[in-house]
């Protein structure tokens, strides 16, 4: 797949210091004026040629948002965000259908190259006609690339369509499958769910749409690359994944952003719907720009991710490796409505320098015999703060509900913080809930042992940290696991000693 090992190697060779993905791309852009108003929303909706109902839906969200206050219960400290000082729409200008790579904006191609996406894949991403068929045989990962606000291209739409799978930008889905979008959009995360979800609902510009029909096992991994490029622009993508009865799909997202002195806002919403016996696996490698050592710049990542196991025996599994962002506020959750449904959350969150992460999950057990597993690995270095915040709620009907939670924190150095905030609410006496938590440090003897065997201090830290995270990393699809391992080692570079 594109984000595979080459990504890191390529990117590493491009720049040798600091954030390895910190390049920006000079591309001809169309940018809306700063500020948020009904006019902004009308402009976005018009640009995307949306139907009336969606404009109304956005305006309702905006009305709700205006009544809401930014939440401050997270263990996060940041300067106030000026929501009127942000561009809510920024899109690369592109006339439809270049015919070969020479016609593609070279800057856009260069971006893909720096991200390590192989050339043929880049041709597909840039929309060069005729490349898809040739590549069909070899590639097993379909890619959607979201560059600032717009999905640049989605690969393999045709071959997926043969299997009955829809994988396309959500803006295209609104046009081509309006009934599907309309019946599921907001059904897991309603417009007024929370401040950031309401903001997203009002201004979302793109994201991915996946629909896997009854009984279909999606024949390849689906993945999306999110990249924020434009200055002072926010990114508000919206992803909606639906797996019908007995369907199976694995979806990956990767994120990077240029190095900027100012903070950039990212407020995404992801909704997953799993019907009877369906399985959705959602993996994230989040590597937004984290800011510099003094805490200047970096992405503010306020994300609402929620999946609903609507049908009996359905299963939703979240895996996340979070190394980027100045601020992370993110709780991928599962609503376990169907009897016997299963929710999983596997998380590695790394904070270094002045990064702050407040992340965890919510497992809401509504159906009988529902079960959930939470494995959270927090790694803090530098002056960072890393908080696990999790809720396990068992409703009165959830007979025999089970949860197992494991929260492990690893501290590197003396100035960082690790915090665990588990909330447990059980309204059914038959529920069995287990919670384990540990805090440890990388021991001097472990480092010395590795170095005596020839490893550099940084390689030793990488090895020990990867060992600490193994239970989570093994949940990632193979290609991502390799990249995630390198990413962990890279993001901790220089934080020891």
């Amino acid at each position, binding site marked *: 797949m594109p984000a595979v090992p080459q990504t890191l190697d390529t990117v590493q060779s491009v720049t040798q210091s600091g954030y390895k993905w910190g390049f920006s791309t000079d591309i001809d852009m169309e940018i809306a004026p700063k500020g948020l108003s009904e006019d902004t929303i009308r402009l976005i909706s018009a640009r995307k040629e949306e139907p009336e109902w969606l404009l109304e839906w956005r305006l309702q969200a905006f009305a709700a948002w205006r009544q809401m206050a930014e939440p401050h219960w997270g263990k996060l400290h940041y300067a106030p965000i000026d929501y009127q000082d942000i561009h809510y729409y920024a899109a690369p200008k592109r006339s439809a259908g270049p015919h070969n790579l020479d016609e593609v904006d070279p800057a856009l191609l260069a971006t893909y190259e720096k991200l390590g996406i192989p050339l043929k894949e880049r041709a597909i991403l840039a929309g060069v006609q005729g490349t898809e068929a040739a590549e069909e045989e070899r590639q097993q990962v379909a890619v959607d690339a979201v560059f600032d606000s717009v999905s640049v291209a989605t690969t393999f739409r045709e071959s997926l369509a043969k299997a009955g799978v829809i994988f396309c930008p959500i803006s295209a889905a609104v046009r081509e499958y309006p009934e599907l979008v309309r019946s599921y959009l907001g059904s897991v995360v309603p417009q007024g769910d929370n401040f950031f979800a309401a903001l997203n609902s009002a201004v979302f510009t793109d994201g991915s749409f996946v629909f896997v029909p009854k009984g279909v096992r999606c024949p390849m991994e689906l993945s999306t690359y999110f990249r924020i490029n434009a200055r002072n622009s926010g990114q508000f993508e919206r992803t909606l994944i639906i797996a019908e009865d007995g369907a199976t799909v694995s979806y990956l997202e990767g994120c990077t952003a240029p190095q900027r002195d100012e903070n950039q806002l990212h407020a995404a919403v992801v909704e997953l719907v799993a019907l009877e016996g369906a399985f959705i696996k959602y993996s994230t490698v989040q590597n937004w720009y984290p800011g510099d050592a003094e805490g200047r710049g970096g992405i503010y990542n306020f994300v609402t991710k929620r999946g609903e196991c609507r049908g009996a025996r359905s299963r939703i599994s979240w895996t996340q490796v979070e190394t980027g962002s100045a601020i992370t506020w993110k709780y991928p959750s599962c609503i376990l409505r169907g009897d016997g449904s299963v929710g999983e959350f596997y998380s590695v969150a790394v904070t270094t320098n002045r990064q702050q992460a407040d992340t965890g999950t919510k497992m809401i057990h509504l159906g009988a015999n529902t079960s959930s597993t939470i494995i959270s690995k927090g790694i803090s270095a530098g002056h960072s703060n890393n908080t696990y915040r999790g809720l396990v709620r068992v409703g009165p009907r959830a007979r025999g509900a089970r949860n197992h939670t494991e929260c492990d924190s690893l501290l590197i150095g003396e100035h960082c913080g690790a915090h665990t905030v588990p909330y447990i609410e059980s309204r059914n006496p038959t529920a069995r809930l287990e919670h384990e938590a540990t805090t440890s440090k990388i021991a001097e*003897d472990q480092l010395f042992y*590795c170095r*005596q065997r*020839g*490893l550099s201090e940084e390689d030793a830290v990488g*090895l020990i940290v990867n*060992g600490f995270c193994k239970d989570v990393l093994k949940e990632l699809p193979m290609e991502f696991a390799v990249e995630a391992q390198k990413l962990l080692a890279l993001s901790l570079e220089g934080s020891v000693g």
Partner: protein
Amino acid sequence: MLVIDDLRARVEGKDILNGVDLVVPTGEVHALMGPNGSGKSTLSYVLSGREGYEVTGGTATFDGVDLLSIPPEERAAAGLFLAFQYPVELPGVGNANFLRTALNAVRRQRGEPELDAVRFLKLARAATKRLSMSDEMLKRNVNVGFSGGEKKRNEVLQMGILQPKLAILDETDSGLDIDALKIVSEGVNALRGPDFSALVITHYQRLLDYIVPDRVHVLVRGRIVRSGGPELARELETTGYAAAEAEAA
């Protein structure tokens, strides 16, 4: 050749090594004996560069390389290997992965090409076989849940794979039954040759029955107080360290 000259070192403000003089010529295996607390492990840590072991005087060179001025990983690349008295556990880190990472780190530092997983596994399997160990050892996490004896054998396995030029074995035989002892000895003897030297720290003659040393040294209160041939170890076995300690006083 390892040349230690008037080496002095301090731990937590306390002088532990008080002028160690010791030469291990290339191709030779020397035994280092001495009472508990005399500084044997300290010497091995100082030579391999552990933090917190402050060198206050003297020199130590290996094949002309000034060991004391380079970080631990470069000493490893120079060919130094320490079999730890208390091997360290690395949770979640697979033994094979650890060994391959280590071997490739050393090879990289020496400008040699790295080994891919397939070639490494071949080499590792050959090493386990030589040491009568099962391949299971390679799949488990480094030392996690290992018995005392397994940990020691794992040290010897690592030595066999990394193929050092100078091995320091710190009481690798302590707590081993006779079969394990033989395996450890075979691990050392297999490496013996004109380009390999070793410093074997032990309390027991029974190890030296299998690894016959070229020289035996006795460390007391941070100094070598006696040196001799293999017969010195046998003598100490009967008389104990009392005489040597008295001499040092």
